[in-house]
């Protein structure tokens, strides 16, 4: 169904997530979805459709919810992240995540926020930290704005800057995949623009999966799009195809704005 030139970085196989007896995502046989290396994949659909639930299954965030159960497989470079013996901490290091609300640690300085993940894995060397922080902040297009006040508290940044700071924090540990859960939902249009621009340069380094309720955004930033509805993954394909020639009537109805 897709060109062979790109290779699959992550892949879900028959993935079902249940909350107690309710199926969060994976209605109708589980989700099978490839995520291509160095591409941006957008997950779209009306709220409650399961797109965020799917996203959180990709770095085992459901481990934190006692009633959530995950069935099926998620392969990261061919390795099942739900296999026994796999440590979720290591999965999350390779598959980073950015949330809807900026979650900069408010009592820490900008520098310490970015360095937090590196310090966790035991990197103490000052020069290495300095380099990594600068690289991550440049990668998140924040360096020029904060380079003179790295030691000031992160709470002094604007919402859009804080969101880019959390992206920098996620980038600092050099993940392979970056999951973004509606990263611009709480931002103004200018900050949104900055983050969208950022995505296009980021995919040089990482594979990106972005959940968005904004179809224009999906069309602007993504290479591939998956449409979710009522816990079912309805359709997946190159973004252009999904937005111009959807196969499924429900997809067509959604992208033409007939519901959701």
């Amino acid at each position, binding site marked *: 169904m897709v060109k062979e030139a790109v290779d699959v970085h992550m892949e879900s196989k028959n993935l079902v997530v249940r909350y107690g007896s309710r199926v969060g995502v994976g209605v109708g046989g589980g989700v099978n979805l490839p995520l291509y290396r160095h591409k941006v994949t957008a997950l779209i659909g009306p709220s409650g459709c399961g797109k965020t639930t799917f996203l959180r299954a990709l*770095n085992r*965030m459901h481990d*934190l919810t006692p009633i959530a159960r995950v069935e099926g497989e998620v392969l990261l470079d061919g390795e099942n992240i739900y296999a026994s013996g796999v440590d979720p*901490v*290591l999965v*999350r*290091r390779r598959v*980073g*995540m950015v*949330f*809807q*609300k900026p*979650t900069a*640690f*408010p*009592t*820490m300085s900008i520098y310490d926020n970015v360095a*937090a*993940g590196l310090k*966790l*894995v035991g990197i103490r060397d000052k020069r290495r930290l300095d380099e990594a922080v600068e690289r991550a902040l440049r990668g998140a297009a924040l360096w020029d704005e904060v380079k003179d006040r790295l030691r000031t508290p992160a*709470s002094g940044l604007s919402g859009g800057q804080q969101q880019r700071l*959390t992206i920098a*924090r*996620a980038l600092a*540990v050099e993940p392979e995949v970056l*999951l973004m859960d509606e990263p611009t939902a709480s931002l103004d249009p200018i900050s949104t623009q900055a983050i969208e621009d950022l995505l296009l340069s980021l995919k040089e380094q990482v594979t990106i999966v972005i959940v968005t309720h904004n179809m224009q955004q999906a069309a602007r930033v993504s290479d591939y799009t998956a449409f979710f509805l009522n816990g079912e993954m309805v359709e997946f394909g190159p973004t252009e195809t999904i937005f111009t020639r959807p196969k499924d009537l429900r997809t067509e109805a959604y992208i033409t704005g007939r519901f959701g």
Partner: protein
Amino acid sequence: MKRLYTHFGDRIFATLLLLLALGVAALALLMAYELYRGGSLALQRFGLLGFALGREWDPVVQKTFGAWPYILGTLIVSFSALLLSFFPALAAAIFAAEYAPRWLAQVINFLLDLMAAVPSVVYGLWGIFVLAPWIRDKVQLPFYMWAAEQAPWLVPILGVPTGYGLMTAVLILASMIIPYTAALARDAIALVPKEHREAAYALGATRWEVMRLAILPLARGGIIAGTFLALARAVGETMAVTMVIGNSHKLPYTLFGGAATMPSVIANEFTEAVEDLHLSALIAVGFLLFLVSMAVNFTAAYVLRRQERLVKGVL
């Protein structure tokens, strides 16, 4: 009042409420005023500073009154108890808010309520008949004997191993104030937004690293406010301390030996005080206690308000 509430009944009702509520306000002001007035005889005789820093409290022969032994005793006992209680209280709060399964968290919350509800005299009763004799026989005596032979310089610091003294009072008090620190710390931890935990987890943090990175820094204000509240309780705790502290105001205080605090001297001597000056001195101690408690409570309220602003800014 607003124009909207011009109904006659409303005005009467609001006025009635206001009058009764002003009674509450008056009570607080009255307490400050009456304690000051009741203690004025002693305060004028010795001066506020002379009274607070005077080391001699002799109601019988010299009839001089200096509250310093009691102030010092209160400071030592409260801060030691606070220090001793802080980590267990924080541990209980962390466990209840973050790690325990729901049923166990509920048990812990119930126990914290219970701990705050057990009357002070019951703690004191246990202290008199169980803790003090045990500490005397199993801790103080052996240690004292050892020190007498091996490290004689320690003996004056240890004091007489009677069991009824500073050490026992501190232990009981530490246990009594745990629920105040723990409850506020627990609530502060529970208020940390879910997103912050998840952000730390998503960074590849272990459970404890999440606590250290994302939760404790945000809950810090609530934890500090809780310790101030516990301090306020410790400063004012009367019965349990009076029952086990040995009630001696002879300075210098020793680790095992008797001591006294501001509330304990009031509880001990008030009904025996026949002379006006003695009675006035005890009320003056009450006035000092009022000032100290107020200062501690205001600090707690201030810290808590800053904390609320921090968390609100994050949400």
